[in-house]
């Protein structure tokens, strides 16, 4: 016997066709909203290696969830079992329907409800094996589901410290998602129970149920439930966080075709916002969370707030911009640039209230902010800087840590470079702090001023002691000079032998500053210098995993009290092996950390300056030079 149709499949069909239709329309809208160059990129992205890479990534990340697996096995397994398992179920289900079904190319529901329409299938040989496979997959999914349910109630078990909070539609979607597989299990079991088919899972469960229940009658409602939960899930998908499932595919394609966040909101930012699966890894890795107990501003919440069109300004400004979540995000959302855009943006107008907007939101709006209270720096009058090959720009923060400044002078004097200390009498801010506050227009004024100064000096190299300055000099200045952080510069001096250093037996650990490390990718030079002059030891927080000192200028909201908590925590972590020196390469880090630890905190320049090996004659000259400097200062 072979029925071709039954009314219970209607909810599923509605859901399925709705979501397919929706995804298509949505992707058209998104594509339309892309900037012209991005359109071209995307088109190119569909051919050649980019496409292959995308497929690979989709498989590795969207299905297997490799990144999550790496950071947290149980969480990874959970995501994988659901995503990959479901994928297999659909895939093999379709195949099953295709080969064992009455005809080829069935309507999808035939595959999904195969067991209903072919109840007495799977008794013999190959069919049985196939049935076994299907049951296996189902079991695989259910195991993951179990974890998910547990996680929802006790986060710890899956190794999550925090779990994201949900809004109503999310809850409904979640429940329907949870119902899908149990209901399928029961539906299939009852059917198999009735026809005594089915494999180890459905079969055995079915026959057992059949012993005390009217399997034939019981099966039908569960098929309904199965179909309904599928339908509901599909329909709610676009306004629930599970939208990340389809969206992530777009994200991967876009990324691999070279589209980047940039500095304006648009399709890509929106796609990123929807690709966030709220896995909560960003929450776990956020120091503001686990050191200062601030638990409502992490990137997951930022994404959610944006999806809900809430006012995100408070969230956006309350972040150290250390970039730890950035490197850890399994979906690879560019969280820091994303946040910067939100800082520049005004409050988004709240249009989510009408349900239609939930599905077809107007492209993420940035209301043109009321004209910014324009800053006025015309009090900066330009003077003619002396000519020099190398410019040393200490930076505001370095002026608050004279030891770094003096060490750099000592090193520069010791080397034979012809340099000029450009902001010896206190310079103009590099502009990065303004940018971090989302005030690019003002920042640009300062950037232009500094740029002119640098051009006029005719230097070919610009050395700065402050990673904050370094980042902005490199990224936002249009300079024809080589910009170096002093660690890079010192490394250079060592390599070309312009400075000779003594080795000290001191035990040193290195704290990589956010702006220098994750910010601009300078990880190795500092460590190489330290290896050169001392016993560098590693910590649990190397390179991209390094901690933030908590002093970051990027956070406009955090209280000094909470900053201190973070700093203390970081200091403890880094001084666990009680080193002689906690080395860093940022005046701000030095200042912040040294105020909360007994261990000596020193900038690399200081360590190098102390290790300088200068022959007597030269030393005298320098002492004279420096003494003259003093006089001049006075």
């Amino acid at each position, binding site marked *: 016997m072979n029925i071709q149709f039954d009314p219970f499949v209607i909810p599923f069909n509605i859901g399925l066709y709705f979501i397919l239709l929706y995804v298509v329309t949505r992707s058209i809208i998104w594509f339309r909203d892309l900037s012209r160059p991005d359109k071209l990129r995307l088109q190119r992205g569909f051919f050649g290696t980019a496409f292959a890479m995308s497929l690979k990534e989709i498989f590795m990340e969207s299905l297997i969830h490799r990144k999550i697996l790496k950071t947290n096995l149980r969480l990874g397994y959970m995501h994988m079992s659901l995503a990959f398992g479901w994928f297999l179920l659909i895939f093999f289900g379709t195949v099953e329907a295709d080969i064992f079904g009455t005809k080829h190319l069935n309507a999808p529901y035939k595959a999904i409800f195969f067991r209903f329409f072919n109840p007495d299938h799977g008794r013999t040989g190959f069919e049985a094996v196939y049935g076994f496979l299907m049951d296996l997959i189902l079991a695989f999914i259910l195991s993951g589901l179990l974890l998910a349910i547990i996680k929802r109630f006790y986060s710890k078990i899956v190794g999550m410290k925090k779990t994201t909070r949900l809004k109503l539609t999310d809850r409904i979607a979640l429940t329907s998602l949870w119902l899908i597989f149990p209901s399928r299990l029961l539906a299939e079991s009852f059917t198999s129970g009735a026809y005594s088919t089915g494999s180890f899972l459905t079969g055995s469960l079915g026959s057992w149920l059949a012993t005390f229940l009217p399997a034939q009658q019981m099966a039908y409602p569960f098929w309904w439930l199965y179909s309904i939960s599928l339908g509901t899930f599909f329909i709610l998908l676009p306004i629930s966080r599970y939208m990340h499932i389809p969206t992530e595919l777009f994200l991967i394609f876009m990324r691999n075709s070279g589209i980047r966040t940039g500095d304006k909101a648009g399709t890509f930012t929106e796609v990123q916002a929807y690709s966030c699966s709220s896995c909560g890894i960003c929450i776990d890795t956020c120091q503001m969370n686990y050191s200062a107990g601030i638990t409502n501003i992490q990137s997951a919440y930022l994404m959610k707030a944006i999806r809900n069109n809430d006012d995100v300004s408070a969230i956006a*400004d309350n972040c150290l911009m250390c970039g730890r979540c950035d490197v850890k995000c399994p979906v690879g959302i560019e969280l820091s640039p994303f946040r910067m855009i939100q800082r520049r943006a005004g409050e988004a107008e709240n249009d989510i209230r009408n349900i239609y907007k939930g599905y077809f939101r107007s492209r993420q709006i940035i209301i043109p*902010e*009321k*004209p*910014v*209270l*324009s*800053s*006025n*720096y015309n*009090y*900066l009058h330009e003077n003619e800087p002396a000519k020099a090959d190398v410019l040393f720009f200490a930076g*505001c*923060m370095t*002026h*608050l840590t004279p030891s770094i400044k003096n060490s750099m002078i000592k090193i520069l004097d010791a080397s034979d470079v012809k340099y000029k200390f450009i902001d010896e*009498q*206190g*310079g*103009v*801010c590099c*502009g990065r*702090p*303004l940018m971090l*506050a989302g*005030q690019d227009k*003002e920042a640009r004024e*300062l950037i232009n001023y500094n740029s002119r100064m640098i051009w006029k000096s005719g230097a070919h190299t610009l050395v700065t002691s402050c990673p904050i300055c370094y980042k902005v000099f490199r990224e936002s200045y249009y300079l024809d000079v080589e910009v170096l952080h002093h660690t890079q510069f010192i490394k250079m001096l060592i390599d070309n032998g312009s400075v000779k250093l003594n080795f000290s037996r001191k035990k040193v650990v290195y704290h990589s500053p956010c702006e220098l490390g994750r910010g601009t990718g300078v990880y190795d030079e500092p460590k190489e210098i330290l290896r050169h002059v001392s016993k560098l030891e590693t910590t649990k927080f190397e390179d991209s995993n390094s901690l933030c000192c908590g*002093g970051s*200028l990027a956070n*406009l*909201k*955090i*209280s*000094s*009290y909470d900053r201190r908590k973070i700093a203390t925590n970081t200091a403890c972590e880094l001084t666990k092996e009680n080193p002689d020196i906690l080395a860093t390469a940022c005046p*701000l880090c030095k*200042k912040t950390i040294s105020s909360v630890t007994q261990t000596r905190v020193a900038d690399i320049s200081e360590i190098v300056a102390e290790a300088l090996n200068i022959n007597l004659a030269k030393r005298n000259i320098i002492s004279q030079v420096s003494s003259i400097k003093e006089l001049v200062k006075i």
Partner: protein
Amino acid sequence: MNKFGFTISQGRQIDYESNSRRIADYIYDNEPSFRLCIECGACSATCTAGNFTSFSLRELNILIKRGENDQVYQSLKKCMLCGKCSLVCPRGVNTRNIIILAKKAFQLSDEYTV
């Protein structure tokens, strides 16, 4: 009108009642540490902008609190937001947020055409 060869001088007195402390209240609500300022002047001493022009966060705080908003509005523009002040503040005042909130408060109010 000046047919007497002089005009009536305006007083320098701050008239506390007639001044509007809208800006101050906005900051109080959003940055409580604003209240902690004891006007020690550490911020002004280290100020990058203050090195070039007559800008003093200490004075700014007072003027905001007294509601001398026109003056605040003018000097607010000079800040570079570099954050040295927040590092030297003995009372842990979140100085940069004060500047940002003040700017925002002015934007929110329509009295000030920017």
